[in-house]
C-alpha cells in the first residue's frame, strides 16, 4: 500500500477492482465503511461476481476475468476525452511532457522490438529522447506528438466504451456511470483510492493491470494524497515483510537485485546501477545504491567483506536466467533436475498451478523438508487419499522430513502489514511438544553444515565458513539481535557527509536510519529500507502511542513504518508546485517557507525548495511515469492481452495468445486448451470464514464453512441440468475436481464479443488434511504460466468445463 488501512477513512471514492476486501480483509474494510459513514464516500466494485464487497457498494459492474487492462485504458481514454484530468499534477508530477524516442511505437497488439522466437522485446526504443546535456527532452506545452501524453492519448484510443463492453462484458451504461463517478476525483480536492489484491496479480499480465490503475490515479492526481494511493491488500500477515527482506530468487533485501552472470565483478554490478538523474536537480535516491549494497554485504560477511575482495560480492550466487522462481524450480524438479527442496511455512501442493505436475515433480526429489506449525498437503503429497490425492506411496521414492515449528502465538518479532507498518509482537504461549522456532531450526541447519565444511572442506566453503554469525547463543539468535542486525550499526565512526567533523555514530552504535549508511565498509545493515526500526532510541516497532494529531489516521508513534516511519508514500505530491496542499481540508505535508512540515514524514529532503526537486524522488526523472520506459518486460504502456486460456480472440491481434512476453515452458504450452472443449471461464477466490489452507485445521472455521463447493449461475445450472448442492465435476486440460454446486444469482452470464460466457467460481480453502471435509482446490485446474514480469501464476482466468457427477471417493485417512 502507498497509504495505510487507517488512511482509507480520508477518501471520497473507493474502487475495489481485483479484490474483495469485505470478504478477505474484513477489519481493514471497516475503514471504507468509516469513509462512507463520516465523509459520504462512495464505493464502486468491479468484479466478475457480485461479491460481499459489491453487496455494500454504491455501484457495481461486472467484468470478464482477465480483461482489466482494456477496462482501465478505456477509463483513461474517457478521462482525457472529457477533460477529467488534474492538469497541474499531470504536467508537473508525471512524465507527460517528456519526449519519447522516435523509433518507439506499436501495432497489432505489440510494441516495437518484439522477438517472437524469444517471447521477448528488444526495448532499445522504449526510452526518452536525451539531449546533449544528458537530460531527457521535454515539451511542457504537451504539443509535441512524441511527448508521453500524446503517445498515451493515441495508445488508449481504441478502448472506446463500446469496445470495453465488447471485450470486458461491462455494459456501456454502467461503464459510463462509473467513469463519471471517477472523473469527479480529478478535482484537486477530491480523492479516490484503489484497493486491489490477487484479483489483479494472478494474471499473466498482472503487473500491467496494476500499472493501468496507477496511471489512472496519476491522471486524477490521487497519488501521495490522504485517502488516495494504490493500495495492494497483501494476502498474508508478513508477505510484505518477506518481500521487503528480499527472500526472492531475483532480489536481495530492500529491493536490491541479485547479480547476474553479466555482473562479472562488483564494480560492473554497480556500474549498471548509477541512477544518474534524467532531469536537472532531481534526487534520484537510488544513487545511494552502493551504500545499501555494501552495508548488506557487511551484514552478511562482516570483517571478511573488504574493499579489496569487492565486499565478498562473489559469494553471492549469480543468475544465468532472469529468475529461479517457483514455477521454474518446479519445472526443473519435474525434469529431475532438483534433489532437495525445503518448504518453510508454505504449502505449494495447493498454492501453485497444475497440481498433477507438482505431484510428479515432488516425487522426483531425493529429500523434501517441510517446516510448519500444521500438517500440510505438501508434506503428505505421497499419501493416498482416494480421489483427493490419488497416488501410490510405494511408487514414490522421495524421503520427507516434517519439522514442527512454533506459530505466531509462541514467538517474538515483527510482521510488516500491508501499510508497511512493522509491528512487534510477544509470545503468549509455549511451543507445543517439541515444536521449535524457525530461527532455531535455521541456526541448527547452518551450524551443522558449517561444521561439516570445517571438518571435511568441500566446494567453495568460504561463503558458509565466513558468514557473520555473531549471536550470544549461536544456536538460537534472538529476535532482538536479528532486528538490530537488520537495522544496522556503525562498524567504524560515521560522520556527516558534508561536515566531516560532526560524528553521527560511534563504532558499535545502532544507526539512526539509512541516511547514515556508507559505502566504505564503515556500516552494516541487513535491509536498508528497515534501517530505523531498532536504533539507539530503542525498538520503534514496539511503540504503542495511539496519538493522532488532528485525526489524520497517520499514527506516527504507533509501531514503525518503512521508509523512515513515513506513512504515505510520495506525500510531497499532496501539495502543489509551491508547496501548498491541494486540499486545505486534508493537509498532509506542506512548505512553511523554510522547510517541509506536516502530519507525516515528508517524502522529500526537508529543505528541498518547492518547484525544483520533484516529488518522485526514487525515479531519475523526479516525476512519476505514465510511460515506464524499459522497466517492464511487456511494454511501457499496458496493452490489452487475453489470458493464455481465453474464450475470445485478442481484438488487437487474433494470432496472439496470452501475454506475448510471458515465459511458458513447452510442456505447459502444449496443455493450453481452447474454448472449443472448455467453454467456461474458471476463476479462484477466498471466503471470509477461511484463511488459505490453514483454518481448515480449526474446528470452528471448519464448522462455519465445512465443504468445498463451486459457484455457478442459474443460467449455467439450467443449461447443464445442475441443481443446487448437486455433485459436479469441473475439469480443465490439466486436471479434474469434484465439488458441490452452489447455484447463485451472484454470477451472471457475461456478453463478450457477441457470446454469452459463463464464469465458474472456485474457492481455494480445501485439501486432504485438517478438520474440514476433504476437498480440492482450483490449482488442480490452473495453467502453469506466470506474469511476464514477476512470474505470479495465472490463477484468476482459465478455461474449464462442467458436468453433473457422482460423489468423490474418500480413500484412506492418515
Amino acid at each position, binding site marked *: 500500500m502507498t497509504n495505510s488501512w487507517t488512511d482509507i477513512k480520508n477518501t471520497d471514492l473507493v474502487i475495489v477492482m481485483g479484490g474483495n476486501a469485505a470478504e478477505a*480483509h*474484513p*477489519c481493514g474494510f*471497516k475503514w471504507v465503511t468509516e469513509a462512507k459513514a463520516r465523509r459520504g464516500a462512495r464505493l464502486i466494485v468491479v468484479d466478475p461476481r457480485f461479491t460481499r464487497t459489491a453487496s455494500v457498494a454504491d455501484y457495481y459492474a461486472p467484468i470478464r476475468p482477465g480483461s482489466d487492462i482494456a477496462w482501465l485504458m478505456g477509463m483513461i481514454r474517457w478521462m482525457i476525452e472529457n477533460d477529467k484530468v488534474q492538469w497541474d499534477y499531470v504536467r508537473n508530477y508525471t512524465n507527460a511532457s517528456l519526449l519519447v524516442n522516435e523509433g518507439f511505437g506499436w501495432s497489432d497488439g505489440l510494441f516495437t522490438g518484439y522477438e517472437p522466437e524469444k517471447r521477448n522485446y528488444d526495448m532499445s526504443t522504449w526510452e526518452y529522447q536525451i539531449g546533449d546535456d544528458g537530460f531527457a527532452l521535454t515539451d511542457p506545452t504537451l504539443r509535441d506528438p512524441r511527448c508521453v501524453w500524446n503517445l498515451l492519448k493515441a495508445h488508449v484510443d481504441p478502448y472506446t466504451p463500446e469496445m470495453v463492453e465488447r471485450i470486458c462484458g461491462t455494459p456501456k451504461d454502467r461503464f459510463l456511470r462509473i467513469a463519471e463517478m471517477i472523473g469527479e476525483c480529478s478535482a484537486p480536492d477530491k480523492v479516490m483510492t484503489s484497493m486491489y489484491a*490477487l484479483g489483479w496479480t*494472478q494474471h499473466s499480465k498482472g503487473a500491467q493491470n496494476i500499472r493501468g490503475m496507477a496511471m489512472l490515479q496519476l491522471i486524477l492526481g490521487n497519488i501521495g494524497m490522504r485517502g488516495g494511493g494504490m493500495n495492494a491488500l*497483501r494476502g*498474508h500477515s508478513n*508477505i*510484505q515483510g518477506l*518481500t521487503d527482506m528480499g*527472500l*526472492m530468487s531475483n532480489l536481495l533485501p530492500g529491493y536490491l537485485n541479485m547479480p547476474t552472470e553479466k555482473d562479472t565483478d562488483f564494480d560492473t554490478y554497480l556500474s549498471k546501477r548509477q541512477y544518474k538523474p534524467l532531469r536537472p536537480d532531481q534526487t534520484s535516491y537510488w544513487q545511494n545504491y552502493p551504500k545499501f549494497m555494501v552495508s548488506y554485504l557487511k551484514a552478511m560477511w562482516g570483517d571478511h567483506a573488504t574493499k579489496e575482495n569487492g565486499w565478498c560480492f*562473489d*559469494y553471492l550466487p*549469480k*543468475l*544465468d536466467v532472469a529468475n*529461479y522462481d*517457483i514455477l521454474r*524450480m518446479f519445472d526443473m524438479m519435474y525434469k529431475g533436475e*532438483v534433489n*532437495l*527442496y525445503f518448504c*518453510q*511455512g*508454505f504449502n505449494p501442493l495447493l498454492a501453485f498451478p497444475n497440481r498433477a505436475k507438482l505431484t510428479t515433480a515432488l516425487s522426483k526429489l531425493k*529429500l523434501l523438508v517441510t517446516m510448519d506449525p500444521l*500438517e500440510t498437503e505438501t508434506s503428505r503429497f505421497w499419501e493416498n487419499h482416494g480421489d483427493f490425492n490419488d497416488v501410490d506411496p510405494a*511408487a514414490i521414492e522421495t524421503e520427507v*522430513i516434517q519439522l514442527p515449528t512454533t506459530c505466531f502465538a509462541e514467538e517474538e518479532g*515483527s*510482521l510488516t*502489514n*500491508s501499510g508497511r507498518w512493522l509491528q512487534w*509482537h*510477544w*509470545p*503468549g*504461549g*509455549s511451543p507445543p*511438544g*517439541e515444536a521449535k*522456532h524457525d530461527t532455531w531450526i535455521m541456526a541448527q541447519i*547452518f551450524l*551443522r553444515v558449517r*561444521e*561439516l565444511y570445517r571438518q571435511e572442506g568441500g*566446494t*567453495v566453503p568460504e561463503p558458509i565458513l565466513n*558468514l557473520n554469525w555473531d549471536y550470544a547463543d549461536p544456536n538460537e539468535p534472538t*529476535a532482538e539481535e536479528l*532486528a538490530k542486525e*537488520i537495522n544496522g550499526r556503525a562498524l567504524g565512526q560515521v560522520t556527516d557527509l558534508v561536515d566531516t567533523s560532526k560524528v553521527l555514530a560511534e563504532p558499535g552504535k545502532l544507526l539512526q536510519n539509512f541516511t547514515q549508511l556508507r559505502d566504505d565498509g564503515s556500516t552494516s545493515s541487513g535491509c536498508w529500507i528497515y534501517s530505523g526500526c531498532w536504533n539507539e532510541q530503542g525498538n520503534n516497532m514496539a511503540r504503542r502511542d495511539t496519538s493522532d494529531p488532528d485525526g489524520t489516521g497517520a499514527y506516527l508513534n504507533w509501531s514503525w513504518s518503512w521508509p523512515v516511519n513515513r506513512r504515505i508514500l510520495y506525500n510531497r505530491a499532496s501539495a502543489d508546485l509551491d508547496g501548498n496542499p491541494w486540499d486545505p481540508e486534508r493537509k498532509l505535508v506542506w512548505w512553511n517557507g523554510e522547510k517541509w512540515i506536516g502530519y507525516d514524514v515528508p517524502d522529500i529532503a526537508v529543505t528541498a525548495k518547492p518547484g525544483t526537486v520533484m516529488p518522485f524522488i526514487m525515479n531519475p526523472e523526479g516525476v512519476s511515469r505514465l510511460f515506464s520506459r524499459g522497466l517492464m518486460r511487456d511494454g511501457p504502456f499496458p496493452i490489452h492481452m487475453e489470458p493464455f486460456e481465453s474464450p475470445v480472440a485478442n481484438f488487437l491481434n487474433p494470432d496472439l495468445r496470452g501475454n506475448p512476453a510471458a515465459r511458458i515452458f513447452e510442456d505447459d504450452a502444449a496443455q493450453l486448451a481452447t474454448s472449443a472443449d472448455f467453454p467456461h471461464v474458471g476463476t479462484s477466490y477466498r471466503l*471470509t470464514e477461511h484463511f488459505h489452507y*490453514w483454518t481448515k*485445521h480449526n474446528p470452528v*472455521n471448519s464448522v462455519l464453512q465445512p465443504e468445498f463447493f463451486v459457484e455457478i449461475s442459474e443460467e449455467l445450472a439450467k443449461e447443464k441440468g445442475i441443481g443446487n448442492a448437486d455433485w459436479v465435476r469441473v475439469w480443465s486440460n490439466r486436471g479434474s475436481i469434484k465439488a458441490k454446486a452452489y447455484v447463485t444469482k451472484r454470477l451472471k452470464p457475461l456478453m463478450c464479443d457477441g457470446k454469452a460466457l459463463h464464469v465458474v467460481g472456485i474457492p481455494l480453502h480445501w485439501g486432504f488434511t*485438517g478438520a474440514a471435509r476433504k476437498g480440492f482446490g482450483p490449482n488442480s485446474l490452473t495453467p502453469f504460466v506466470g506474469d511476464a514480469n514477476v512470474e505470479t*501464476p495465472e490463477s484468476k482466468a482459465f478455461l474449464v468445463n462442467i458436468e453433473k457427477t457422482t460423489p468423490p471417493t474418500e480413500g484412506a485417512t492418515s
Partner: protein
Amino acid sequence: MNVDLSRRGFLKLAGAGVAATSVGAMGFGEAEAAEIAHVRAFKLWTTTEARNTCPYCSVACGVILYSKGDVKAGGAEILHVEGDADHPTNRGTLCPKGAALKDFIHAPTRLTEPRYRKAGADRFEPITWDAALDKIARALKDDRDANLITTNAEGVTVNRWTSTGFLAASATTNETAWATTKVVKALGVAGFDNQARV
C-alpha cells in the same frame, strides 16, 4: 511485553469498590459479603496478557493472548484470544478467522514432533531433532559439493546452486526472514522464493 495494568484489572478494582459502596450504603452489610462470596471469579483475572497480531491477512489486527503459566519457563497455555481495543486499525474487532484464533493455536493437527517418511513408505515415523538435522545437513553438504556451479563457461565466478531449492513462508517474522535469507543466500541457493510469488 505484558500489559502493566490491564483494563480488566482496572475494572476489577474499580467495579469491586463501586459494588461494595452502594450495597453498604443501602444497609445490606451482610448481603455484601454474601454477594461477593457467590460471584465466581472472572476467568481471565489470573491470566497473563501478551500483545500480538493476527497471523492471517495483512490488516494485522492487534490481538491480546491470555495465558496461564510462564512462557519463559515453558508450559504457558493460551486460554483466550481477543481483539486489542487499543489497536488503531482493528479497534478490538476481529473477523470470523481472527475470532477463532485459539482454534488455530490448539488445532488437533498442530505438529508436535519431527517425523520422517522413508522412500516408498505409506506413513511417517518419529525421528529425533538431532537425527533429522544431521540428515538434512549431510544432504545439503553432499548435494552442494556435487552440484554447486562455481564458474561459467567464460570463467566468471558464479557460485550458483540450482539442484536444491528453498521456499520461505508468508507469516514468519522479519527476524526469522533475516536469519533464513542469510543462510540460504550464503549457501548459494538460486531457487529461493517466498509466498509473495503467488
